[in-house]
C-alpha cells in the first residue's frame, strides 16, 4: 500500500528572559505559561503514547536560550512558585465556581488537576529539568532532537557577517552537544529564514538538514521537480525540507484552521480580566496589571461577546473529528500527488510548539490523536523524521532553495521594516567591533577573557529574532526595545573599556550574574581570522 510520509517539526524557543532582580517579572511568564500549558502536557502525552506502544516519530527543535532557561535552578524555582500560585488560585476557583458559577466547576476542577499534575511531573518525574523528558524520548527513538541558531537570530539580515553567522551555528551546536551528548543532525532555521549559501556554515558544523519556507522551492531560480513534497539537496549535500503551507494551514490558520472551531476554548477570555481586582489581584502582575491566568471558561462560540460556556466533552469530540479530517486530507491529497509525481509525497509540517496547548488548548489532544491514528497499519500516512527519511532516500534533486522566510510577505519584511530597521545599524556595528576586539585581544586570559566573553554574549543576545518581531507586532515593544538597547549598550561598555585597556569589574560581575547563558563561550569565535 502506498504510504505518504509526514514529518512534524516543532520549534521550542523563547527569548532569554531572566530578571531575578524582581520577585516576579511579567515577561518571565512567557516561559512559565509555555512549560505549564504546552511542554509538560505534551511530554505527558508523548510518554503515554510510548507506554501504549504507539510507534510515533516527531522532531523537536530546542533553542539554546530554552536549554539554558530550562536548566537554570533560579528559573526552575520561580516556575515552581508560578505553579503554586496558580494552584492556589485553582483551589479558590473551586470554591467560587461552586457557589457563583457552577457551570464552570468542571473546568475549574480540570485546571486544578492539570496544575497538580504539572507540579508532580516537574518535581518528581523530571527533578525540575524537563529536558530529561525530551532526552528519554529521543533515546527510545520517538523524537529527533535538533537545534537552532544560538539566540534564534533571523540569519538573512546578518549575511554580510559570516563570523556572526558562524557564531550562531557553532554555539548552538556546542550548546546542544553539552546538553544531549551528541551533535544534532538537523537545524531549525529561525523563522524559516534562508539565503543561498547559508548551508555552507551548517555543513561545516555537521548539520545534514534544515527546514525552509513553502515558497522557497517555487521561487528557486532552478527548476524544482517535486515542489514542496520532497526535500532537495543543496549543492554541498545538506538537505532542505520545504514546509507544506496548505497542510500546515489546516492547523495554523487563525481564520479557518481547526483551532477556530466554535466549540474550542476561547483564548482571550480569562478571569485575569473578568473578575474583580479584590479577588484576582494576588494572581496577576503587580501593581494591578491584569494578565492572563490560564483560567478560561468560555468557548469560542463566534465573533461575539456572548460566549457559550466551554464544554470539554464536546470539544474532545471535535478533536477526534479534526484529527481524522487532517489525515483524510493528507491521504486524499497524497493520492493525487503520488499519481502526478510517480512516487509518494513527504509532507513537512513545521509549527511553533506553543501552538499546542497554550494557544490551541485542545492542540495536544489533537496531536495525540493524529500520532495514534497515523501509527496504525491500515493508515496511508506514516510518520518520519527528516533524518530517517534521508537515511532511506538517496536520490534527491540537487538544487538550491530561494531566499525566503515564513513571515508576512515571505521574505525579511517582518524583521526589517519601519518599526525595527534602526536596530541593524547598532547590531552590525557591535558585530564589527566584536570582531575587532577578538583580533586585537585574541587569546586573553582571566579578567579580560571574562570581559570579552561577556561582550560576545551581549552581541549574540541582541541578535535574537524575537526583538524585531515584537517591535513589528507591537505586543511587548517597550520591553523588547529595552532589552535590545541594553545588550548593545552593555557591549559598548566592554568596547569602550578595552579600547582604553581597562576592565570595568563592577559591570562585569553584575553582567555575568545576570546572563548565565553560554557559560563556556569563547569570544575568539568572533575572530574572522580563525
Amino acid at each position, binding site marked *: 500500500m502506498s504510504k505518504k510520509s509526514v514529518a512534524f517539526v516543532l520549534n521550542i524557543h523563547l527569548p532569554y528572559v531572566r530578571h531575578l532582580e524582581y520577585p516576579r517579572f511579567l515577561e518571565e511568564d512567557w516561559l512559565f505559561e509555555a512549560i505549564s500549558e504546552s511542554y509538560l502536557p505534551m511530554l505527558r502525552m508523548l510518554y503515554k503514547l510510548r507506554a501504549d506502544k504507539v510507534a510515533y516519530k516527531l522532531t523537536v527543535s530546542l533553542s539554546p536560550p530554552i536549554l539554558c532557561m530550562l536548566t537554570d535552578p533560579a528559573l526552575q524555582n520561580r516556575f515552581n512558585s508560578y505553579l503554586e500560585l496558580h494552584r492556589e488560585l485553582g483551589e479558590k476557583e473551586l470554591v467560587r465556581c461552586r457557589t457563583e458559577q457552577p457551570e464552570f466547576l468542571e473546568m475549574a476542577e480540570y485546571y486544578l488537576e492539570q496544575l497538580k499534575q504539572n507540579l508532580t511531573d516537574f518535581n518528581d518525574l523530571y527533578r525540575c529539568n524537563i529536558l530529561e523528558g525530551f532526552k528519554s524520548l529521543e533515546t527510545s527513538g520517538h523524537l529527533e532532537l535538533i537545534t537552532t541558531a544560538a539566540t534564534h537570530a533571523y540569519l538573512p539580515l546578518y549575511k554580510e557577517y559570516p563570523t556572526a553567522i558562524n557564531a550562531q551555528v557553532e554555539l548552538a551546536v556546542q550548546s546542544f552537544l553539552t546538553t544531549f551528548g551528541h551533535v544534532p543532525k538537523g537545524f531549525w532555521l529561525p523563522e524559516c529564514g534562508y539565503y543561498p549559501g547559508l548551508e555552507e556554515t551548517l555543513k561545516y558544523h555537521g548539520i545534514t538538514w534544515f527546514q525552509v519556507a513553502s515558497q522557497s522551492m517555487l521561487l528557486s531560480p532552478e527548476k524544482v521537480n517535486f515542489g514542496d*513534497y520532497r526535500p532537495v539537496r543543496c549543492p554541498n549535500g545538506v538537505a532542505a525540507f520545504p514546509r507544506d503551507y496548505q497542510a500546515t494551514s489546516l492547523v495554523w490558520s487563525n481564520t479557518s484552521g481547526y483551532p477556530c472551531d466554535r466549540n474550542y476554548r476561547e483564548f*482571550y477570555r480569562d478571569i485575569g480580566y473578568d473578575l474583580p481586582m479584590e479577588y484576582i489581584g494576588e494572581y496577576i502582575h503587580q501593581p494591578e496589571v491584569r494578565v492572563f491566568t490560564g483560567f478560561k471558561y468560555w468557548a469560542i462560540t463566534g465573533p461575539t461577546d456572548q460566549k457559550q460556556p466551554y464544554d470539554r466533552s464536546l470539544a474532545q469530540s471535535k478533536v477526534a473529528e479534526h484529527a481524522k479530517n487532517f489525515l483524510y486530507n493528507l491521504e486524499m491529497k497524497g493520492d493525487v500527488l503520488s499519481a502526478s509525481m510517480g512516487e509518494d509525497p513527504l509532507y513537512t509540517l513545521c509549527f511553533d510548539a506553543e501552538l499546542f496547548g497554550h494557544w490551541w488548548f485542545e492542540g495536544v489532544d489533537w496531536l495525540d490523536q493524529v500520532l495514534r491514528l497515523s501509527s496504525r497499519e491500515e493508515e496511508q500516512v506514516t510518520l518520519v523524521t527528516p533524518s530517517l527519511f534521508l537515511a532511506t532516500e538517496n536520490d534527491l534533486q540537487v538544487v538550491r532553495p530561494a531566499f525566503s522566510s515564513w513571515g508576512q*510577505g515571505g521574505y525579511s519584511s517582518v524583521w526589517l*521594516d519601519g518599526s525595527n530597521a534602526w536596530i541593524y545599524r547598532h547590531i552590525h556595528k557591535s558585530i564589527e567591533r566584536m570582531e575587532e576586539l577578538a583580533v586585537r585581544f585574541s587569546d586573553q586570559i582571566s579578567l579580560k577573557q571574562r570581559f570579552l566573553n561577556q561582550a560576545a554574549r551581549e552581541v549574540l543576545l541582541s541578535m535574537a529574532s524575537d526583538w524585531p518581531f515584537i517591535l513589528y507586532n507591537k505586543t511587548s515593544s517597550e520591553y523588547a526595545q529595552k532589552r535590545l538597547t541594553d545588550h548593545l549598550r*552593555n557591549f559598548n561598555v566592554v568596547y569602550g573599556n578595552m579600547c582604553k585597556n581597562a576592565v570595568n569589574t563592577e559591570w562585569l560581575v553584575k553582567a555575568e550574574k545576570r546572563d548565565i547563558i553560554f557559560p563556556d563561550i569563547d569570544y575568539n569565535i568572533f575572530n574572522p581570522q580563525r
Partner: protein
Amino acid sequence: MILINIDSLSTTELQYIAQQEGLENWQTLEREELIDELEETYGEQDDEITASWLKSKGGRKRFCNALTDFRGNKQDVNGLPGVEDLPDVYAETSIHLLMRDPVWAYAYWSLSPATKIQVFGEDEQLGGSLFLRVFSLDLLTYEEKTFDIAVGVEDTQWNINLPAMGNSYKVTLCYKNKKGLEMALAESSEVSSYPSYWVNHYEEMAMDSKLFNIHFSSLVTKEGEIVDNAVLQEIAQTLSGGVL
C-alpha cells in the same frame, strides 16, 4: 500595541484596555462605544498592522500574555554601571545595504565628522549635496546600470526600490559639490535577487496540470488563499488567468 478579537472580548476586558489607553469616561461608555473608541484610538496610533489585525479579527501571536502591551517597565531593567546611551550614528563613513525582498532593499549609512568637514567644510560653507548611486548588474548579460537617489545631509537611511530581479545591487554614498564634481564616500557590499525559474517558464507549467498541482497545491489553503508572497502571487495569477 495590539488589539485582538475585539468583538469577542468581554465588556470588562474592553473597559480595562480603555483604561490602559487613557480613554476618558471609560467607565460610562457602552460596549459599542468602547469598541468604536478603541478602534479609533488604534487607528490613530498606527498603521497597517493594527488595521489588518482588526480586519482579520484574529491573531495567533507569540509573546502575548496580556491583552495590552504593559507599559510599566520604565524602571531601568538590566541597568548596569558604566552604561551609556547608544549614539544615533557612529563616527565613521560607511554604508550598508540589506535585502528586504527582491523588490526592496534598505540602506543605512553614516558620515564621520572628518568626512563631513572634508566635503562640506568646517561650517558647511562649501555646500554641495549627497546622493546614493545604485549600481545594478544583470547577472545574465552582465549589463550594468546605475541610478541616483538624492538624499539630505541629515538623512541616514533609505528604502531603495530594486527595479529588476536577476540583478546584483550595490549602493555608493556620493557627494557632489557646487561645481558638479562627484566623489564616492562609501560603498556597500552587494546583494543579489534571483528570479524564479517559473517567471521565465510559465508555459511549461501552463501546459502541464500535474506540474501545476505539484507546485501549487502546497501553497494554497483549502479556501484558495495563496501564500503571502508577491512574486508567487504574480506567477499564480498569470498561470490561472486571475483565478488564484
